């Protein structure tokens, strides 16, 4: 591929005129501004969060009472699968991308990411993947094999196809429906993977290459460090599941033999490849939240973060060790005592850097002037809830104990504590914290506090009780259960808790919408924060900083707000005293930013078309594949020949 100099002779292929809109729908479709893309990620993520939440409520209604027939087993399988897939791939990963996009370039003092159009491409491909995945609703059903979709259940539907008919159809119909659902899974996640891979490359290059002068690696905010670790994890984990997904696709659609034991294939290959991706994925989901609360806790404790270096290296250590623990998801699969012991040990090891982080957050709060504003409440909630989930995680590492817990609600309780209690609490804290930067207005504190306490209560009712259900033997993924096992009361309470969570999330969304117009005006630095994103206006101008800040310290903004007195203490500089805290300039002057472009969104359109082609056969399939490929490759070519910014603009 070629880049071209931005001179007038190389305006490139004039297939589409350069978009000019700065407001309205097209300005969003064609934008290359990392802040607008971040906002779009937020909206799309919230949409999928609501979808997954509704799916969770449907699961809980079905399980509220024994012998329930609210959902048929077939529908139930699709709903619990899509709850998991949606939360992991369409909420968890893009939730990280939301914050990385909006906040990270501001925190390193950059004007935008390294590849602005690639960034837009990532977002639109992610949307295309979501649309493709849920198009299963009109194409025979959604994936139904659980989010990790074990072979050979995913490939041959167990030993007897005729016994597994959908809606009374024939075995052949069942095979077709099954193939379609597995294509949705394999191709849908493949497309989502392209989006994440592109943004991983983009964020790595941005962080390594676009830092403001003076921003050395060890001066970067912890959030930026965590972004970097997550991007590397994505970079190396995605191709592994990518291959597994290709193999699944070739097996269900073109009859290849990868996972079918009767033809010599090995279902364990799927498990290994899935979890070799799947465990780093756990850290891909949680490290953004670790980064977010590492920004919130120092700000609201009025102290620098305790043990910055240890904090950074613990995050990097998690990134490395995260590759050596995947098989602890497979203890019950029969790998033998040697492998089980090895992975048991590595799993205990990885608790160490996580523990370092937890102690450092506590150390930051210790002796600080703690202000319990809503972001801080959510950050403390994250630390507490994640610790509970982390401890139940350590119990999984003990192999005999693990045999007892495998596929029970104890596991469900565990991963909701780390992912909901960790990722979702942390992210909501991040929303409250950075909302004033994005919109210029604060979110409502009263609503925020109600939001926090109801969420904490509903969360602990729902998932705390699941520990007991699991230890009492209730398997996960069953669509109903008989009365008399002693599970009735807890299940009913859990369903109540789930609705409390739903109400609390509704309150959050209400707060987001209402505060947009009615929120208190925030100013540039409402929290008296420490990092440079609070130096620019709220919301920031499209070029982020009028002048790129010169960084001379970790917690740069704090140092600008304080000076050393004669006695050697730090004293507060009176507001406006230093003169260089916030620079406001109204005129855009001559800062050149990349122009919007049609091509990233257009390139994304071709991918689901190629996916849908696999549902057809013969010439139809070939034609659709070609059409999709022409759109995507053509748009990429046109993009390549289009200069990043037009001359004289």
């Amino acid at each position, binding site marked *: 591929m070629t880049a071209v100099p931005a001179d007038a002779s190389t305006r490139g292929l004039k297939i589409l005129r350069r978009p000019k809109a700065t407001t309205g729908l097209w300005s969003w479709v064609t934008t290359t501004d990392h802040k607008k893309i971040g906002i779009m990620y937020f909206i799309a993520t919230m949409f999928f969060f609501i979808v997954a939440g509704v799916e969770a409520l449907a699961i809980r209604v079905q399980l509220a009472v024994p012998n329930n027939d609210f959902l048929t087993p077939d529908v139930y399988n699709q709903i619990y699968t899509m709850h998991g897939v949606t939360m992991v791939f369409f909420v968890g990963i893009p939730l990280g991308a939301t914050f990385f996009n909006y906040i990270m370039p501001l925190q390193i003092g950059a004007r935008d990411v390294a590849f602005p159009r690639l960034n837009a491409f990532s977002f639109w491909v992610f949307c295309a993947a979501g649309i493709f995945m849920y198009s299963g609703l009109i194409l025979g059903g959604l994936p139904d094999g659980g989010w990790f979709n074990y072979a050979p259940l995913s490939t041959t539907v167990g030993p007897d196809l005729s016994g597994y008919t959908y809606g009374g159809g024939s075995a052949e119909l069942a095979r077709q429906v099954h193939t379609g659902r597995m294509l949705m899974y394999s191709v849908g996640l493949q497309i989502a993977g392209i989006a994440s891979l592109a943004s991983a490359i983009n964020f790595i290059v941005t962080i390594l290459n676009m830092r403001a002068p003076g921003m050395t690696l060890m001066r970067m905010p912890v959030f930026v460090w965590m972004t970097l670790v997550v991007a590397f994890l994505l970079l190396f984990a995605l191709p592994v599941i990518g291959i597994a997904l290709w193999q699944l696709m070739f097996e269900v659609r073109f009859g290849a*033999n990868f996972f079918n034991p009767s033809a010599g294939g090995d279902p364990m290959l799927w498990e290994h490849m899935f979890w070799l991706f799947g465990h780093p994925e756990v850290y891909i989901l949680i490290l953004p939240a670790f980064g977010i609360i590492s920004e919130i806790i120092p700000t609201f404790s009025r102290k620098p973060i305790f043990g910055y270096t240890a904090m950074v290296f613990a995050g990097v250590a998690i990134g490395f060790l995260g590759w050596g623990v995947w098989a602890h998801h497979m203890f019950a699969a029969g790998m033998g005592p040697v492998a089980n012991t090895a992975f048991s040990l590595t799993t205990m090891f990885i608790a160490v850097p996580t523990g370092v982080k937890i102690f450092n957050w506590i150390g930051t709060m210790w002796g600080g002037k703690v202000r319990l504003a809503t972001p801080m409440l959510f950050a403390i909630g994250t630390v507490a809830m994640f610790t509970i989930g982390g401890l139940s995680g350590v119990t999984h590492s003990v192999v005999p104990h693990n045999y007892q817990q495998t596929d029970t609600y104890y596991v469900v309780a565990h991963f909701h504590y780390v992912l909901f209690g960790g990722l979702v609490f942390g992210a909501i804290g991040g929303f409250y914290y950075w909302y004033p930067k994005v919109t210029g207005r604060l979110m409502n504190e009263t609503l925020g506090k109600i939001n926090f306490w109801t969420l904490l209560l509903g969360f602990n009712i729902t998932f705390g009780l699941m520990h007991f259900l699991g230890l009492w033997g209730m398997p996960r993924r069953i669509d109903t259960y008989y009365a008399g096992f002693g599970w009735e009361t807890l299940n009913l309470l859990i369903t109540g808790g789930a609705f409390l969570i739903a109400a609390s999330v509704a309150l959050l969304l209400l707060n987001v919408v209402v505060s947009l117009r009615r929120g208190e005006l925030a100013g540039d630095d409402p929290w008296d924060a420490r990092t440079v994103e609070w130096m620019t206006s709220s919301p920031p101008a499209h070029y982020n900083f009028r002048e790129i800040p010169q960084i001379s310290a970790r917690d740069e903004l704090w140092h600008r707000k304080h000076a050393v007195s004669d006695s050697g203490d730090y004293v507060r500089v009176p507001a406006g005293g230093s003169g260089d805290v916030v620079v406001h300039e109204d005129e855009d002057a001559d800062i050149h930013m990349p122009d919007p472009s049609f091509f990233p969104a257009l390139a994304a359109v071709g991918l689901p078309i190629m996916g849908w082609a696999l549902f057809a056969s013969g010439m139809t399939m070939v034609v659709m594949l070609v059409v999709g490929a022409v759109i995507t490759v053509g748009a990429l070519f046109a993009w390549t020949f289009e200069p990043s910014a037009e001359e004289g603009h």
Partner: protein
Amino acid sequence: MAELTTAEASTESHATSLGLSNEKLGMWTLLGSECLFFGALISAYLVYYGRYNGVPEVSPALYDIPFTSVSTFVLLMSSLGMVLALSAIQRGDDRGFRIWILSTAMMGTVFLSGQIYEFTVFVNEGMRLDTSPFASSFYVLTSFHGIHVTLGVLMLVTLWARSMTGKLTEANADVVENVGLYWHFVDIVWIVIFTAIYLIPYEQVTG
């Protein structure tokens, strides 16, 4: 790789933090990811080595090692062409650049033709995608490599066309270097694949 950076587009145009262009760093990052991509494919092939699904005729005995060695040699020589093309454009020798970039693309095409011929022969001898885990993993591994070579050839031809229309000159030698990085990677990965597939004596594995 295809982008002008914000830094370049902005008036400051200050140097990047690492002193390496964003495009080049991005390409290296992508290649890091590709290592895992091919690593997973090669692992799957090695895991399924010798799993013939009751069709022992479809085995490494089908491989025509001298034939594939020749096409491998051509692919490896194309890396030399790539180096000479880069050297030419860096010296401002547009004519030399066009000759070498086109030669590189042609050597890539020869390799691809060899792969298509090989696949045709194998299919005629009964080795199909669905024959056995051995066959499935062979085809998926080699064809993904083939797709990478195809994309590379497309990029090389594009570079040639840009040079012919005068839009690729000494000033954009970096673009050629980045495409070169990709091309060399695809060659190097083939050395590993060729070794794993063709050079491991199969009698030893199957016993």
